[in-house]
């Protein structure tokens, strides 16, 4: 076991106690003791990115199956125990990782450890439950198809990524899901659910050294995996604009534009965080002020930076007002992006955006789970791990208006852009 290093994180985050167990499990403990509560999150570094052709949706489906019984916790008991303990649990899957959380009172949080120890190796993947849960996942997929934005986002992702597995939906392609066999899931589970592919974050009313001892007891004996996470095909540079139209049974026109960008933790990542804040972080931000207020052409507009383990996307999404012509809205968005790329932010704008981001760290301190979420996400999705998060506030202070302008120019140009439109199929819902 390595030595414990307890490092202060400049007041925006609480001290983090970090260890890597002999079996490779990365453990992060944060004492946050104002209320008698604990958030327990385990992150596996496996997500839609790791799925091979024919097995899309496996990571997410497996996440569902983790609630359907283990050797020690028969079907239904994980939820029943959590509820009986007055807590909450849930899980989510994204492109790069799968995370499971328990929010429990601090006098009983170690129950979560016992459950996760059992789930890491002992998920039953019962055949009958597999078939039953497959129906639930397909219902979830259909629910997504009926949501106004989801088919558009998926269309743009699948167009922006042609080679990298990010082109696949996290929930999977329907036909592949329908054909998926239990044994395929079993193999996937054995390959990826191992301590050296996991990050455990516990934040709350705990004593860090005592917590570390409990974790060692419960999870320290689980063996490493035979193989590390496999490389995936990287997306070649985009060499020209791509466009897609998705027809939707609805009334409104919706637009999603995505540009290829960078990895979590790259120098450009916090620069693009600032760019998204400057473009749409409130009513004083540029896209709101010019598209919703000034030109009154959009009902909604958002920019967001979605860096990932492999280079991700920077998005601008907008919904037109009832009379808005798609071409006018698209031209207005691009005019603002281009203006931003050539002018960069004013000193006043930059100061405001920086403060908004830094204050969000303070708001995160209000709940144990938001602290666990930020820490775990960095460790699970960034090559350099949580230390990037530690450096983030200081790094934010070094970013100049010029760097923002240069970064926006570098990424948010036409040849690197995929534009998607969701347009009414026949102008009505019925």
């Amino acid at each position, binding site marked *: 076991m390595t030595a414990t290093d307890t490092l202060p994180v400049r007041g925006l985050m609480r001290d983090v106690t970090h260890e890597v167990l002999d079996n490779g499990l990365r453990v992060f403990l944060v004492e946050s003791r*104002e209320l008698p509560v604990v958030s327990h999150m385990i992150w596996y570094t496996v997500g839609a990115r790791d799925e091979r052709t024919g097995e899309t949706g496996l990571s997410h489906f497996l996440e569902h199956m983790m609630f359907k019984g283990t050797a020690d916790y028969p079907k239904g008991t994980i939820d029943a125990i959590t509820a009986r303990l007055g807590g909450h649990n849930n899980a989510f899957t994204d492109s790069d990782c799968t995370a499971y959380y328990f929010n429990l009172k601090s006098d009983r949080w170690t129950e979560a450890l016992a459950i996760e120890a059992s789930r890491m190796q002992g998920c039953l993947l019962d055949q009958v439950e597999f078939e039953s849960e497959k129906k639930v996942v397909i219902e979830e997929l*259909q*629910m997504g198809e009926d949501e106004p934005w989801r088919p558009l986002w998926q269309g743009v992702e699948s167009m922006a990524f042609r080679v990298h597995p990010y082109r696949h939906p996290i929930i999977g392609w329907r036909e592949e899901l329908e054909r998926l066999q239990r044994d395929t899931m079993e193999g996937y589970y054995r390959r990826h659910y191992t301590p050296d592919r996991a990050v455990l974050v516990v934040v709350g009313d705990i004593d860090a050294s005592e917590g570390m001892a409990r974790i060692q007891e419960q999870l320290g004996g689980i063996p490493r995996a035979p193989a590390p996470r496999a490389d995936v095909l990287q997306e070649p540079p985009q060499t020209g604009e791509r466009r897609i139209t998705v027809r939707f049974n609805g009334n409104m026109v919706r637009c999603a534009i995505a540009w290829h960008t960078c990895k979590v933790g790259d120098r450009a990542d916090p620069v693009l965080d600032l760019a998204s804040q400057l473009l749409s972080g409130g009513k004083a931000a540029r896209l709101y002020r010019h598209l919703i207020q000034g030109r009154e052409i959009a009902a909604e507009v958002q920019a967001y930076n979605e860096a990932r383990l492999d280079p991700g996307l920077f998005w601008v999404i907008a919904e037109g007002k009832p009379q808005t012509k798609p071409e006018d809205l698209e031209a207005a968005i691009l005019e603002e992006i281009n203006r931003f790329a050539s002018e960069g932010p004013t000193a006043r704008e930059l100061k405001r955006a920086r403060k908004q981001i830094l204050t969000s760290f303070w708001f995160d301190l209000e709940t144990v789970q938001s602290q666990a979420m930020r820490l775990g996400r960095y460790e699970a999705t960034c090559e350099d791990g949580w230390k990037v998060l530690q450096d983030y506030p200081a790094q934010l202070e070094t970013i100049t208006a010029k760097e923002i302008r240069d970064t926006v120019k570098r990424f948010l140009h036409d040849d690197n852009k995929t534009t998607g439109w969701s347009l009414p199929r026949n102008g009505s819902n019925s």
Partner: protein
Amino acid sequence: MKLHVRRRRLRSGLTLLAAQTRAAPTLAVACSFEINQLNERPQDAGIANLVGDTLDEGTERWSGDELAELVEGLGGYLRVGANGAALQVAAHDAKQAVAILKEVALRPKFPAKAFRRARALTISDLESELDDPRAVAGKRFRALVYGDHPYAREPKGSIETLDSLTPAKLKRFHEKWYTPDNALCVAVGAEDPEALLDLLEKTFKSWKGEVAPVSEAPELLRPNGVVAEHIVYDRAQVQVFLGHAGIRRSHPDYYRLMVMDHVLGTGPGFTSRIARSLRDEQGLCYAVGAGITGSAGREPGMFQAYIGTSPGQEETAIDGFLTEMRRIRMESPTEPELADVKAYLTGSYVWAMERNANLANFLVRAERFDLGDDFVERFPDFVNSVTVDEVRAVAEEHLDPDNYYLVTLGPKAA
């Protein structure tokens, strides 16, 4: 667990509330009103919502742009709406935050241009919601349950009623209902609560005015038999809403029904009977739930069961709802089932205390419904005193599996 709430009542009738938290150097402040369709004339439907949406579009002191820059310059979040204004900031910005709160809640100007823009955005929003099948079905269900009650009306109004509104009408509505005796000012965060009360008192003490009583709403009626409607929407899933009128928050059966809800259809994960049966065992859906207490307010709420499922499965789902409703009316839950629900309810309310803004909402709700400062301490007793027979008895009294509204929305006629 104890919650220390400080309170002051000013001569104007305004109540101030404060509580201290220590988790983060942050603060949530709110000036909260209970204003909704009951305060509106039917021909002005949507005015309460539009007044709320335009509170931050310009005040006596600041323009809308200046306000946005001010709030965002603090790194804060300002939310405005029919319930008033709420702000989250760093604790050291308390003074500025309370000054902003006063401006937006008490001194909005409803500038003509911002008014027209906000109205157009509301109309756009109404159009956009038509693209969301769950929202469309849910609204129709609500309209059926509430019948002649003002809550049947769309809170955002309609294109026709919105067209008839003017900035002058908004101003009059604001003057009439945004009064100190109809408001609660609350501050929760990392500051001395007495100092927060002093700050609120100093800022709001000159506020005068009295609220007019709202007209009484008609009682909700349950249908005779089943009133079913199908809305044809070309979508992958069928949306199903089933239910009828519910109870007020002040109903003496409230806590018994809260326990019943968790046995029947509100429990976390797949612990409730309906989630276990329809999702976990039959695989009919991703989203499902049922309950009567979640919507209970000063006016009656609804008993509502919801599922989104594939076409062709809706009858099975509806049968599932009715079977579980009948079962809980006929048989008492088991003692272990009840014990689990009690353990969850009494153990989990600590999570409502965690975020400043959540705690502020909790304090407002506790004050509105006169729950008392020791509510948090007494809550476990309310829950623990419920018996299995009482759960069955309240289910029998308040759930009606023979007389209900049913709205389905999906690709073909049900």
